[in-house]
């Protein structure tokens, strides 16, 4: 998997799409696999729990579909696209560390059925997300 690395060392795979809320999207046969980025998991610290939606739940873009608990906070997960949940990573609540260790792989969270293809156009490609997080790091 081709990937770029931000100045601060965060992994940003090129073949994924991103949101300003730090979710990533991988398009696979009409479904969108959704997870949180390397940058996001690093900001949260040790993740202890992931609260998942149920298969069949539908979300509008930007709606909260779950939460991630870390030792220091709880973060909301926002749907990157409109769609129905067709699959959840049911292992995740018991193996929450996968979000820290393999955020783009075993740490995936849900699969959404894409209902509005046009929304994909509005997500960040890797290069833009890289710029976005570099700016965020500089602010601090």
């Amino acid at each position, binding site marked *: 998997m081709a990937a770029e690395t931000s100045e601060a060392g965060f992994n940003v795979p090129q073949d994924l799409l991103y949101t300003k809320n730090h979710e990533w999207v991988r398009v696979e046969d009409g479904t969108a696999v959704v997870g949180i980025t390397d940058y996001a998991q690093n900001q949260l610290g040790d993740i202890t*729990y992931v*609260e998942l939606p149920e298969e069949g*739940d539908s979300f509008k873009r930007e709606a909260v579909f779950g939460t991630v*608990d*870390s*030792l*220091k*906070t*709880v973060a*909301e997960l926002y749907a990157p696209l409109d769609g129905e949940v067709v699959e959840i990573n049911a292992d995740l609540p018991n193996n929450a560390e996968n979000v820290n260790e393999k955020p783009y792989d075993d740490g995936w969270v849900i699969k959404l059925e894409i209902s509005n293809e046009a929304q994909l156009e509005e997500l960040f490609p890797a290069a833009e997300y890289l710029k976005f997080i570099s700016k965020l790091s500089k602010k601090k």
Partner: protein
Amino acid sequence: MKYIPQSNEDRRELLNAVGAKHIDELFQHIPSELRVQSNLNYPLAQSEQDLRKTFQEIGALSPSPKRSFAGCGIYQHEIPSVVPFLQGRSEFSTAYTPFQPEISQGLLQCIYEFQTLACQLTEMELSNASLYDGATSLGEAILMALRIKKRSKGKILISQAIQPFYLQVVQTYCKNFQDRIQFIPLSGDHLDISQLKQVLNDQVDILVTQSPNVFGVIENYPEIASLIKESKVLWLTSTMEPLSFGLTKGPGAYGAHIVTAEGQSFGNSAYLGGSTYGIFCTKDEFIRNLPGRLVGQTLDQRGRRSYTLTFATREQFIRRGRATSNICTNNNLNMLAGLIHMSVLGKRGIRELAEQNFSKTEFLKDELRKSDFQVSDSPTFNEFVLETKQPASHFLNASSKESWVCGVDLGRFKEEWKHKLLIHVSELHSKEELLQLTQFLRAQSK
């Protein structure tokens, strides 16, 4: 000495920063007629001697009754001297959970032990560090059940046999979803189970019951348990007198999902409505939806047993507006009195105390029946309703003239209950006092 930490210069800077000219501008959103316009009408400073006299005079306006049979949510019990002695130790009475709570291991251990006893008493898996009182605990339980049910919009069934003050608090909590509430009517002095059976369907999310209920009656939990067993309904229970668990099974044994109780009758006085604390228990699977603080036991770096606040990410000081509850403290000092009282009694002591309360109450019921009074056959614990010919208020007026209280007039809640006198009997009442009460009621009934 005035303690005002900011200088005038500091204040000017603060006001500048928010773009206000005068401090009054910060209170503009409060209508002017609600704001205090002049100085508060306080008397001038008094000497210690005068101050003591003033308060003694105020105290004399409402003397403690010589004897009381009032319950209905607050229960007077013998408080062993060890309770106020230990509770009053400075380590407890001055300590607030510090911002690094683990520095107060003793405080956390008390909370952990309270949680353990609360679970044993209610037969539940998980308890928080206590809430404010029994009524707000029930309100919090409903909010918690709604969180578990997420987007479901099903009905909330509430028993009408719940103490009316509790119902008022619950209705305040439920103000924004009142249309989901459906009351289950009474059948005599308890919840109408056949009505419950009729309305229980898959459109119901939550069932709320109280036992002993406002009439002191122990509800038929085995039957309710069998009704909800196969359903997806979350069953929430309330108890005003947790000492009753010394004789009855805890609601957890019947499959209740959230169990709440008023803790006052363990360790706390009954003056002016008691000093209260809420008992709040649930099942492990709902831990992430629990309101309030939670203490866990763990090992420190050197492998020693230690205690820690846990699952704090649910709480307001971390999670702000999305916290599980706006309660991020607990009623520690009152809870501590309860913990000490329960520890001193022990499992057997709690049972013996409960037996005393129960059998003295049954003794009084029998005496009253012998005197041709009408007393329900429904099972009760340490409180029951006497049906009176004259309004119950008549008896209360008569007893208060002699500086004692013969019970609670349920007519204060509902006109249709005005011939119901609720009488509470505890270990504090002697046989003579119970016979005197019977005589008094007989004399006043003529």
